[in-house]
């Protein structure tokens, strides 16, 4: 025990409020968060969050790892949308190393990133439904997330922590099966999303539970460093994909949905509309990919042998590939000196990578800007005065991911 421990105040037995320890593992928190709430009846008077239960010191570990060994670390940040983290990291490396990627690679990346965004938002929105009392939607949409995971599996071999892609592109070209699965998803998913929306969007119970719950004004949201759907629900149209386009997002037509009040209902609507927009982007990207002809239609990585891991069969049969493979794996390819900040629009907001390189094989310092960690600070302000059950709803509607928060 020391002065940092939370000690019950004097006379806490006689006091009129109840102290409730919610978490760190609790079925309603969907992750490892602890909240110590002071309740007056069912109303939240104040709350204090504790984070760090699954802190794994990624920033320290990354200081000893060559670039490719850091990709699996980024998987474990926001594990609902790992491919966005992987590609954000690879884009940061490409920015530092000055690698230009071909258009087809950009479009393939856009498809994967938007699929992960859908997977991310899908979980968040259906979980909001669960916390409002509608379990059906959550179970129902799981099979559509499964379709997305099957595409990931086809492209990179794994589903949740994907470790997808390489610096400069992908490890292999998309197979025909991947495109068939994508077509199947594009055909079937809009129906399911429409059903999820019609289950909740104009549902009297859901609207009564979410409208006005956990609101935040645009001004406070900006002050708290909100980004992503949570900031847009408060009415600020900031989207990294539009503001600082990466991976050729400037080639796509899409709208950025914004809300007004920043409450749970607006966050639900913004995420829902973003899924439709993501579908729209994926369709455009797929069309653009189909338009490539001849040799261009086979491009899936940039021509950068010093950073791009060669194919395994080439490593066994070609001297050149073997040398590059060895150099990359053993970390003998030095990075240029420099400092680079690159951000992508993650599932929860601006996911930033601040990389300082001193010219060695590993980063001198790598800092992740984790959107969850930054906006979870606003939670006590958002739930003050609301009912406990609405505070739970606010927590899931913020889409807090413990892995991202604790890094």
């Amino acid at each position: 025990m020391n002065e940092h421990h939370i000690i019950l105040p004097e006379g806490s037995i006689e006091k009129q409020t109840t102290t409730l320890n919610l978490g760190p593992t609790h079925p309603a928190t969907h992750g490892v968060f602890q909240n110590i709430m002071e309740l007056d009846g069912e109303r939240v008077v104040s709350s204090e969050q504790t984070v760090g239960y699954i802190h794994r010191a990624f920033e320290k570990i990354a200081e000893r790892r060559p670039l490719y060994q850091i990709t699996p670390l980024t998987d474990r940040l926001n594990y609902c949308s790992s491919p966005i983290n992987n590609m954000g990291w690879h884009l940061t490396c490409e920015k530092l190393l000055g690698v230009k990627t071909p258009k087809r690679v950009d479009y393939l990346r856009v498809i994967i990133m938007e699929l992960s965004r859908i997977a991310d938002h899908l979980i968040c929105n259906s979980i909001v439904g669960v916390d409002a009392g509608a379990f059906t939607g959550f179970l129902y949409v799981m099979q559509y997330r499964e379709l997305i995971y099957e595409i990931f599996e086809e492209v990179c071999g794994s589903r949740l922590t994907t470790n997808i892609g390489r610096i400069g592109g992908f490890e292999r070209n998309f197979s025909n099966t991947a495109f068939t699965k994508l077509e199947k998803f594009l055909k079937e998913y809009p129906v399911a999303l429409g059903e999820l929306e019609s289950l909740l969007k104009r549902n009297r119970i859901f609207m009564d539970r979410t409208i006005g719950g956990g609101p935040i004004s645009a001004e406070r949201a900006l002050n708290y460093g909100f980004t992503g759907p949570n900031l847009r629900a408060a009415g600020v149209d900031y989207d990294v994909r539009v503001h600082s386009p990466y991976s050729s997002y400037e080639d796509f037509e899409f709208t950025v949905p914004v809300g007004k009040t920043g409450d749970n209902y607006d966050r639900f609507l913004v995420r829902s509309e973003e899924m439709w927009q993501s579908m729209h982007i994926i369709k455009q990207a797929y069309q653009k990919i189909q338009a490539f002809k001849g040799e261009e239609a086979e491009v899936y990585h940039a021509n950068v042998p010093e950073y791009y891991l060669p194919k395994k069969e080439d490593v066994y049969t070609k001297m050149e590939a073997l040398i590059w493979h060895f150099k990359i794996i053993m970390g003998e390819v030095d990075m240029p000196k420099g400092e680079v900040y690159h951000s992508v629009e993650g599932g929860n907001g601006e996911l930033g990578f601040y990389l300082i390189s001193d010219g060695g094989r590993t980063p001198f310092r790598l800092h992740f800007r984790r959107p969850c960690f930054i906006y979870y600070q606003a939670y006590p302000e958002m739930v003050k005065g609301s009912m406990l059950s609405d505070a739970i709803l606010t927590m899931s509607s913020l889409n807090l991911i413990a892995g991202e928060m604790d890094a």
Partner: protein
Amino acid sequence: MAITNEYIQQKLTEKFGDAVYNFEENYGMLSFETFRENNLKLMQYLHDEPSLGFGFLTDLCGVNYPDNKGRELAVVYHLHNLQENVRIRFKVFTSIEDPDVFTASRLYAAADWMERETYDFYGVNFIGHHNLKRILNVDEMDYFPLRKEYPLEDQTRIDKDDEMFGRG
């Protein structure tokens, strides 16, 4: 008209003179340094001056440069002007014996936990912070783990009998 890096540099030099220095452009982002006494004034000016309007704190983190005598610790701020979509970065250096920097948490609520994180990992003492305690590590920890003086475990060590983790 979008504000340019030259314009920002000119405005800051006019206002702060020699207190802002080492201007450079890294991958398109203007970055510079300032004295640690000056960080709040600078941030307030960048926030309030209408022609600059850096009203969004994107990121705040610490860096340890062990070979930099007297300037071992740095606090790095990333600010963003959302209207014009311009980002800047500035650093404040401090010595490791006396790592005091003014807190930005009164200006940006977002800085609260970011500063706690920086304190947790680097031991930077943010003066005026209302609740400066560890956030991700355990409260009992008595060192600042991201400082370079604490190396990661040697991967080739063999003295550890640790069957549960695949050694020994």
